[in-house]
């Protein structure tokens, strides 16, 4: 048994469909732009032709004509609203961008943050961590080939180390709090619950906001302190070609810093440091009348830069601690064994021995304070 009301409504629906098609074709016939060929791919089994898709003619004449055909059609108003043309919208409510009715760029920002940066960035961090862990598992800590001599050379002055560790500590605070903000909701929140996670995030956000400007100061100091020894020098190209001897057994000779350290200095600490600092300032101080779109763009740059920075830092931290024996002691105490210097930085070792490195030749204060350690 078929319900008669069902039949009636089906007939009414078909009739309405027919009327709308006739109406649509009539309005398209009146449209001043010629319609391109009808899209046949989407025609369904009911054989109803789909009206052709024409780019809407938005000239004043066409708009006026549309108002004649469709009185009170306010599509032009909404088109104007979405275009965000300056000066078309006003409001009496005081505030930044209160006259903007719709800001569609936020949708793009949402997609970039939630679907691109967090997904690709997150997996990049995980994959690099696994690669480094595997590398450590296979190769272990790179030890010296010869026994240490017991004679030490000053590699990093107290200023070098102060700047390095200030940068490192602020970087770690920023990285951890940044990771909490980007991935905490997916990773940490299910584990520790809403209240504790929110508390942690508040702490992280405030630390991030205050450590950020300090970090950019550190980046500046780092640049001017270490730039002298980071210009391209002899052996750099060979070092890159041999990948620093990580794959092969032989490590090519290098100056005070090898090509890998130089790349980290220029591309990481300096370039990424400046990129995340500048974009960070835009986000950290919302009181300079910057627009929402400026902050959306700054956030995208900031988070991409930060993920790259963390990827580089993972490599740097690994080589400076677990990866290579003696590297951590160098930055902790400032001194390296002569054998370490000879094996890893042969050109620098030769320079020091020949007395061509003034700081290392004489810094009595440091020598007095730090006991010689093998």
């Amino acid at each position, binding site marked *: 048994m078929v319900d008669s009301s069902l039949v009636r409504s089906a007939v009414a629906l078909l009739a309405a469909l027919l009327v709308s098609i006739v109406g649509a074709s009539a309005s398209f016939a009146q449209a001043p732009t010629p319609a391109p060929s009808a899209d046949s791919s989407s025609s369904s089994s009911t054989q109803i032709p789909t009206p052709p898709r024409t780019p809407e003619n938005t000239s004043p004449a066409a708009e*006026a004509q549309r108002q004649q055909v469709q009185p009170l059609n306010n599509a032009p108003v909404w088109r104007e609203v979405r275009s965000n043309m300056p000066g078309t919208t006003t409001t009496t409510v005081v505030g930044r961008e209160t006259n903007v009715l719709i800001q569609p760029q936020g949708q793009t920002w949402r997609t970039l943050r939630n679907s691109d940066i967090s997904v690709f960035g997150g997996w990049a961090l995980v994959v690099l961590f696994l690669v480094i862990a595997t590398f450590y598992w296979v190769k272990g800590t790179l030890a010296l080939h010869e026994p240490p001599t017991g004679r030490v050379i000053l590699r990093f002055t107290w200023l070098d180390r102060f700047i390095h560790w200030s940068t490192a500590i602020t970087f770690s605070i920023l990285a951890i709090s940044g990771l909490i903000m980007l991935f905490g909701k997916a990773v940490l929140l299910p584990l520790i619950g809403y209240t504790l996670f929110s508390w942690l995030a508040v702490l992280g956000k405030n630390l991030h906001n205050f450590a950020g400007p300090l970090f950019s100061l550190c980046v500046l100091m780092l640049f001017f302190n270490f730039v002298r020894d980071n210009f391209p020098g002899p052996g750099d190209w060979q070092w890159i070609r041999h990948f620093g001897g990580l794959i092969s057994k032989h490590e090519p000779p290098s100056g005070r810093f090898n090509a890998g350290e130089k790349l980290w200095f220029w591309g990481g600490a300096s370039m990424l440091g400046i990129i995340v600092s500048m974009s960070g300032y835009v986000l950290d101080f*919302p009181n300079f009348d910057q627009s929402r779109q400026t902050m959306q763009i700054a956030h995208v740059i900031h988070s991409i830069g930060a993920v790259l920075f963390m990827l580089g830092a993972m490599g740097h931290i690994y080589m400076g601690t677990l990866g290579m024996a003696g590297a951590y002691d160098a930055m902790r105490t400032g001194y390296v064994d002569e054998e370490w210097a000879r094996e890893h930085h042969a050109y620098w070792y030769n320079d020091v021995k020949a007395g061509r490195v003034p700081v290392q030749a004489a810094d009595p204060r440091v020598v007095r304070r730090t006991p010689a350690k093998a």
Partner: protein
Amino acid sequence: MARMKFLCDAERCIECNGCVTACKQENDVPWGVNRRRVVTINDGVPGERSISVACMHCSDAPCMAVCPVDCFYKTQEGVVLHDKDLCIGCGYCFYACPFGAPQFPQTGAFGVRGKMDKCTFCAGGPEPDGSPEEFAKYGRNRLSEGKLPACAEMCSTKALLGGDADVLSDIYRQRVTMRAARGTAATPPWGWDAAYGRPDAQGQPVPNAAPPAPAAPGSKS
């Protein structure tokens, strides 16, 4: 269960900002924050329209999607609310929202953001309905009292409608149908056309010859 929605009829809004005031008054909104605002498009130009905008209580809410602490939740009636105890003031919801609904009272130097504040559809927050704590953080919970949002209830021209989406759609559909019937030359001009005249072929309004006859009492739209 009803699905709560706001709808602003641009043909009716006269930019009186009554909704803005009603909202501030009803909810004791923090200083510097306007949960609702009226935006005028092409102010002073023929064809100008005003629209009252606040949180649209989106089905796929961008604020909810980007919040790093997941402080947003959606009621069974589709109202998007948030928990100020969890909010960290990062501003991500403000970046994501197309309508500029989330706002931050400034709580420190250099524009440090406080807890986000936005329209609650007069539905309060996670605290017990009608409690002083809820009022202090989110404003009046009118929905729990069986009332609709103050802005829509106060609207003098009934341009701003708030309530069950099905009911709102029916009202608006009825209005549009009646307007279409009145849009022909044979009928007296309506709404903006009654004030400024019908647009001619160039879109410029032609002033009406005589004031239109007042509508019959009790007629809608």
